[in-house]
């Protein structure tokens, strides 16, 4: 008791210093806003640069013509279709495999060492640079399996690339479903697969679909792995999905920018607008899908 009193007398008086602390807080808030403003500015500059250089070249002809050595006739038709073909095949492959793997890891796997290893492996694969997948695809699909530089080889490579991302996103979506759903299904006598298929998957659907669409968008924007595989071709015909030589939008953009004629810079920028629009549509689609599918979920 007596020890406290002298301590209280010699201890410094607590200064709330509210003004200073609030000021610091406001400055910090300003810094946060500034960072967002900076990011907005960067994005705006990017769009401004691309639009001013590319819009003059963006017309219906551009969208419906195949590429040409002459800027006036050049168009994105074949590379756009090449990108779509890749996107569709990748989505069609990654969807079942990715969701199946995620279901196994989230619902079926016991918490054993083997399964934790599988999961760690997949999250590591998600971080492997895309160019390494290109090297893998070159050796395995193009050479070993003798598919050659075709759409199929490119699509298989990109599927491997985005599969880990799809799996992780799907696992998150599945784990977000409350256990009550599972236990309720079991209580009604469902087997595990019945429980998953009828109770969990529909609930996790928004997250899963969003993950897949975003992964497809990523695959469509990738250039490096396909360059390694050899998707660098001038084609004026629509590529046959299985055996055809092809090119995709990012690579077409890259190739055009390297042509000597100055007009091709504008053509390249116009192609950039097309791919940005495609990305925007896919991202928007992901948002819409998530919103519409989650309408039915209530817990």
């Amino acid at each position, binding site marked *: 008791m007596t020890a406290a009193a002298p301590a209280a007398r010699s201890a410094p008086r607590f200064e709330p210093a509210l003004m200073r602390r609030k000021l610091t807080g406001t400055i910090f808030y300003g810094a946060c806003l500034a960072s967002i403003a900076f990011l907005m500015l960067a994005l705006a500059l990017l769009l401004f640069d691309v639009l001013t250089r590319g819009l003059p070249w963006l017309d219906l002809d551009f969208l419906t013509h195949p590429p*040409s*050595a*002459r800027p006036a006739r050049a168009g994105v038709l074949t590379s756009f*279709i090449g990108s*779509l*073909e890749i996107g*569709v*095949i990748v*989505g*069609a492959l990654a*969807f079942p495999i990715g969701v199946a793997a995620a279901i196994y890891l989230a619902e079926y796997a016991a918490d054993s060492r083997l399964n934790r290893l599988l999961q760690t492996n997949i999250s590591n694969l998600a971080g492997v640079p895309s160019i390494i997948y290109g090297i893998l695809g070159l050796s395995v699909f193009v050479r070993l399996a003798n598919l050659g*530089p075709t759409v199929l080889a490119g699509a298989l490579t990109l599927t491997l690339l985005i599969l880990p991302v799809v799996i992780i996103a799907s696992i998150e979506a599945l784990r977000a479903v409350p256990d009550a759903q599972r236990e309720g299904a079991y209580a009604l006598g469902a087997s595990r697969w019945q429980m998953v*298929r*009828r109770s969990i*998957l*529909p609930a996790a*659907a928004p997250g899963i*679909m969003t993950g897949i669409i975003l992964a497809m968008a990523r695959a469509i924007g990738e250039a490096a792995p396909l360059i390694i595989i*050899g998707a*660098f*071709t*001038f*084609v*004026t*015909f*629509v*590529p*046959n*999905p299985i*055996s*055809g*030589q092809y090119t995709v939008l990012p690579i077409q953009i890259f190739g055009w*920018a*390297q*042509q*000597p*004629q*100055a007009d091709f*810079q504008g053509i390249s920028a116009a192609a950039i607008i097309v791919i940005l629009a495609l990305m925007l549509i896919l991202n928007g689609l992901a948002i819409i*899908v998530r919103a519409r599918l989650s309408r039915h979920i209530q817990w």
Partner: protein
Amino acid sequence: MITTRPSRLAALALTATFAFAACGGGATPSPTGATPTNGGPTEPPAESMEPLSGTIAIDGSSTVFPITQIVAEDFQIEHSDVQVPVAFSGTGGGFKKFCAGETEINDASRPIKADDEGEGIACDANGVEWVELQVAIDGLTVVVNPANDFAACLSVAELATIYGPDSPEHLLWSEVRAGFPSEEVQRFMPGADSGTFDYFTEEINGEVDSSTSWAVQSEDDNTLVTGVAGDTYAIGYFGYAYYVENTDKLKAVEVDGGNGCVAPTDESINSNEYSPLSRPLFIYPDVSKAKERPELKAFIDFYLANTQAYSSEVGYVALPDDLLAAEVAEWEAAAGG
């Protein structure tokens, strides 16, 4: 249930794409020799009795690519059942595929190496019969900034000082020739695996791929243009086409190859007066396939008939008439019979 809209949408999209491919003419490549040969060996290309069809795969040099690209494009417009995909994995890589029988024509910015395992020897081993046809001439142009008024003409030896393997990291113009300003030379050059680089280093430095590594390199020649145009004391080199497109931003250096200073122009490159930096551009068609497949023969005929116009359009220098006539004769002798 998960079996609703999204997967149906995907199925629809898949079907649409395949339908697209089917009607877009993306058919499977026709097997060689399946199309019946037309009559007469010297028949003019476009007016044959039956429409030509088939796939002509072309690969090779990225320097020759722009010409082959235009030829392929116009040929496909006239013969819509023929597909001509043109890739550009490089002269060497292209020869490998060509000699393995995977492509019908190889674009090349240098002659084939007859005693190389991957090229000449492989072609012989696989029965790939080729003929070397020159289609255009490229004049490698050395450029400086327009404000550069001292380096109007450089000798081969001086170029070697600038770009040679022993060139120091910081080289001054005054070290290139006494009387030049004491400013650092800002060097630009094409990427080390381009044919342009190979040719320049061989002619100027004496050995392929032997070069200074203290230059700013780029695979994209447009970047080199920007670099040289943006720096008063810069120097760079690339194909003639890139100079022709940017005469307002660059100044071409006259090169003294031993016979006085020669500026790169259509005429001086055509006559080989601009030396040693004039280089021939070739295509190597598969002769045995051309004898069996009329569309391939027609394509080469078309190429040779139009190469002068197309090479100029792209920015290279057209062959002189007598040289072209010789190439046509060589082609007819090899494949016409």
